[in-house]
């Protein structure tokens, strides 16, 4: 019973958190799917605690706890995905900062009355 409550609470909390971020426009819609994928299994297990056992039988995994390991792998993979995203954003941000600096310099030159130079 307690397990059901915990799992249900976790699932609901995850989904609620995602929903809240979404409402605040701090989370992009496309990442909601990610959270749904994470939150829904918890919810499902809350309603159907024996699901772990069933899945274990189905996948011929002897110890149900190994499913938890599988979940961990899933989470780590998602972390990798997110860090990749951050890295890409970081590159874009660097580019943008450099562009801003070059444009500002160009504007300053223009004000100083010097011939305009071509900055890529």
């Amino acid at each position, binding site marked *: 019973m307690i397990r059901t409550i915990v799992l249900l609470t976790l699932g609901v909390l995850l989904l609620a958190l995602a929903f809240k971020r979404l409402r605040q426009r701090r989370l992009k819609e496309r990442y909601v799917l990610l959270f749904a994928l994470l939150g829904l299994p918890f919810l499902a297990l809350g309603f159907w605690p024996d699901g772990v056992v069933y899945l274990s039988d189905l996948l011929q995994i002897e110890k149900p706890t190994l499913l938890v390991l599988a979940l961990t792998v899933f989470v780590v993979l998602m972390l990798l995905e997110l860090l990749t995203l951050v890295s890409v954003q970081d590159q874009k941000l*660097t580019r943008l*900062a*450099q562009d*801003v*600096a*070059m444009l*500002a*310099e160009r504007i*300053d*030159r223009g004000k*100083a009355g010097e011939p305009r*130079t*071509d*900055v*890529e």
Partner: protein
Amino acid sequence: MVHPRGAHDIDVGADGLAECLIIVPAFNEESTLPRVLYDLRRVLPGADIVVVDDGSTDGTASVVPDSVALLRLPFNLGIGGAMQAGYRYAHGLGYRIAVQVDGDGQHQAEEVDKLIAALKRTGADLVIGSRFLERGSYRQSPAREIGSVLLRGAIRLVSRVSLTDCTSGFRAANGRAIELFAHWYPDDYPEPEVAALLVRNGCRVVEVPARMNPRTGGRSSITLAAGLVYVAKVGIALFLDVFRNPWKGAGLDRLQPARAEAPASSTEAEAAGAWERAR
């Protein structure tokens, strides 16, 4: 795109410096920068200078005179991002030569000419001013010594080039290197990685002896832990570069010179010879 200076041929002499841009990265160098800029202006009146203010929180930008271009990054990018801003600026304006001179006063304006001369004389794509090529007075701590030895070994392993001072930020780049740097440049600790990458991409890297001042700011005394992180990060980057080429798609084929038979390596003797001829 207009390249106002692009039509020039590389040409030795004072008037040849107009094709040259000196890039001065500066992060909170309010106290040392005026002296650096003054010296550069005095010694190299024909060269253009750009200061890259890497999100300084002191008055770095305010000490840059009007005659010097200023790139103010909106926030701190780190040395790699700042240097690349300079190189992208150089590339956009069609400079044929770009020289890195630190804003902390460590590099001497009088030595810049040597780098440029070596660049022109040897046809190298990157000339590194080395503190250790000549037995000079420059000393470093044992921890740094160990770090340099490790990095030197790693570079030799991945690019078969022996550099005496791969972390030196005192360097001159030709148009080809400028274009590659504008395309991609490492974020952290870029110096050793860039040298190795250039060689791996068929470019020539040459070292010449250069005197340097000991640091006056005193802030950048790298601790042992930071040094280890430095070596580890650069080591990882060096070996990653064996499996990836960040400059793929930068038009390397187009940029490839006709002198493919020239050795890509730079031995100390060769570099020293280049320096002798350059004098």
